[in-house]
């Protein structure tokens, strides 16, 4: 059977991913065990008798050695079975399925907004140095670093949600109740989420555009009569986007943590909200599942980015 070089590369990367994912799951599983206080004590309250604790521990498999617990948990997890929430007694897989879509939607909208702003702004800042677009990028960069997201979140909720009532000030309207009300409930957090990484990505793109535009082949292109616009938007941008893509991959982690925080501020029923609720309620199986999932998600996104990178850059050989 004939497999392309790219196919082989992807398979190789996927195989290399197995130990990484095992590590992620082991960490997520065991971190919880390091937290002070037993989960069972939390569930039963301070007044529980020793016998009740033992009984519940046996029921939850908590009396087994650590690695026995881990492997039976892993075996179930691999079949998509994470057990029940301690608190709500709803199957965790079901909980996650409901929440995942919200977080994914938030992230995807945020990335699209980021790129829609970052690409023209980064290009303009590089081609019109020290003029308005360049200053705008600098302003966004300073603002992005110095204004905490929750603060801008609250300010924006107040201004756009309460004062002008352009968007929903919080709460979530599912898409089943209409596209527009749904979008109004997610657009604000998505914009704030986009803003978190906007400065970083724009500046990266500006820097690599400046680098590419100073390279020989751009001047050579001019000497062949190719229009400036084509040189900037086709030749230079494609080259400059390659290093920028790596930065985008790195910011996925920042985005996920931003999503956790924003879902709390805006009370959106996403994974982040699930995670925060689980932390406060010591809902350990939920925590383990969500952390593992986020870890895997992060690793997989970076794999996609690497593959995209190697498809954009013909110099990369697998």
């Amino acid at each position, binding site marked *: 059977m004939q497999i392309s070089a790219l196919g082989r590369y992807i398979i190789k990367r996927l195989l290399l991913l197995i130990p990484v994912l095992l590590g992620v799951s082991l960490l997520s599983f065991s971190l919880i065990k390091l937290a002070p206080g037993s989960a069972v004590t939390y569930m039963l309250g301070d007044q529980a008798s020793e016998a009740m604790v033992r009984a519940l521990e046996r029921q939850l498999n908590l009396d087994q050695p650590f690695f026995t617990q881990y492997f039976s948990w892993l075996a179930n997890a691999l079949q998509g079975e994470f057990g029940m929430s301690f608190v709500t007694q709803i199957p965790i897989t079901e909980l996650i399925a409901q929440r995942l879509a919200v977080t994914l939607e938030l992230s995807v909208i945020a990335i699209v907004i980021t790129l829609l702003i970052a690409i023209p702004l980064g290009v303009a800042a590089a081609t019109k140095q020290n003029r308005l677009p360049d200053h705008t990028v600098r302003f966004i960069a300073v603002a992005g670093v110095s204004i905490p997201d929750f603060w801008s979140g609250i300010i924006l909720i107040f201004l756009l949600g309460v004062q002008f009532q352009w968007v929903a000030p919080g709460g979530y309207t599912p898409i089943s109740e209409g596209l527009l009300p749904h979008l109004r409930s997610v657009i604000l957090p998505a914009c704030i989420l986009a803003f978190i990484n906007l400065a970083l990505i724009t500046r990266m793109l500006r820097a690599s555009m400046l680098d590419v535009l100073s*390279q*020989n*082949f751009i*001047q*050579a*292109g*001019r*000497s*062949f*009569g*190719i*229009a400036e616009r084509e040189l900037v938007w086709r*030749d230079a941008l*494609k*080259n400059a986007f*390659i290093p920028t893509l790596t930065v985008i991959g790195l910011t996925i982690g920042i985005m996920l943590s931003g999503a956790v925080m924003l879902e709390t501020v805006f009370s959106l029923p996403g994974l982040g909200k699930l995670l925060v609720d689980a932390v406060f309620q010591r809902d350990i199986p939920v925590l383990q599942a969500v952390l593992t999932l986020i870890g895997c998600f992060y690793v997989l996104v970076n794999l996609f980015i690497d593959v995209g990178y190697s498809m*954009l*850059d*013909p*110099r990369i050989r697998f």
Partner: protein
Amino acid sequence: MTVAPLTPPQPLLEVSNLCVDFPSEGHTVFAVDDVSFTLAQGEITGLVGESGSGKSVTSMAILRLIQPPGKIRSGKLRFEGQDLLTLDDDAMRRVRGGGIAMISQNPANSLNPVMTVGDQLTRVIRLHLGLSRQEAYEEALRGLRQVEIHSPERRMVQYPHELSGGMCQRVMIAMAMAPKPRLIIADEPTTALDVTVQKQIIHLLDQLRQRHGVGVIFVSHDIAVVSQIADKVLVLYAGRAMEQGLVNQVLTAPRHPYTRALLASMPYLGASKLRQRVPVIPGHVPNPTAAIKGCIFAPRCAHRIDACTAERPVMVPVGNQGAVACLRAEELAEAPSRLTGVRI
């Protein structure tokens, strides 16, 4: 009976009193200062001078590609009778690549690394010849064959990093030739290449000149390389013209102390290129600014007299088609044997 008017053939390119400035804090660099030359159809003129003498700036200025804050301060550029300095931007863009093509020093960096060779070739061909995709593809193949590239179909789908430096330079020549320009500016086209490839590229340019009658400006810091291909030569130093004339004359009877020093630093001219050449002239090319009065070569010239630093020498015609800018050129020509020395 009417007599056809006897007009001299119009030169392909006329550069008159070209001045290019690069302003920077405190002072302005006169990168090219009052340079003039003409080039006929099918003629090859060599532009020589040490690194920093303004060869590339001259080349870029002809294509009006001096990047701000640099600018063409004054002078005239006429290509096929057309005043390039008054053309609008669109017309100038059609001249670039279409009428005047440029091949630059570093072939590997002159191609877009993320575009295939074929895409880059056909883009330029379609831009200037207005062909369909398919016709442009055929034309590109023909161009690659003309520069003696084997299996051109395969090269078309390759990326620049998959080709050797010499191969990239052939692609650049093919790209330059494909839109059928009348003038090619080759800025150090062989400097980055090894000696064998260097010879092939020079041979190729010479062939193209003979076959298509294109004019060539051949830029090099190496007067030995220029002597292999050029008909005429213009010697630049710190942005100013020192001497010009037919290659044979300049090589056998250099008039300007700088030309003599350049030649003296290349004792193996015409001999084996593998032997190391003697280091260049002592001292370095100054940054030409307004502060420099008189002859700009004076600080390194062994024949300097007081008058040299007071008055700027102008180009004075000598011999057949030659000119030299040295106050003492005539006087020094009397005793050529003592004149290769340079002050250290």
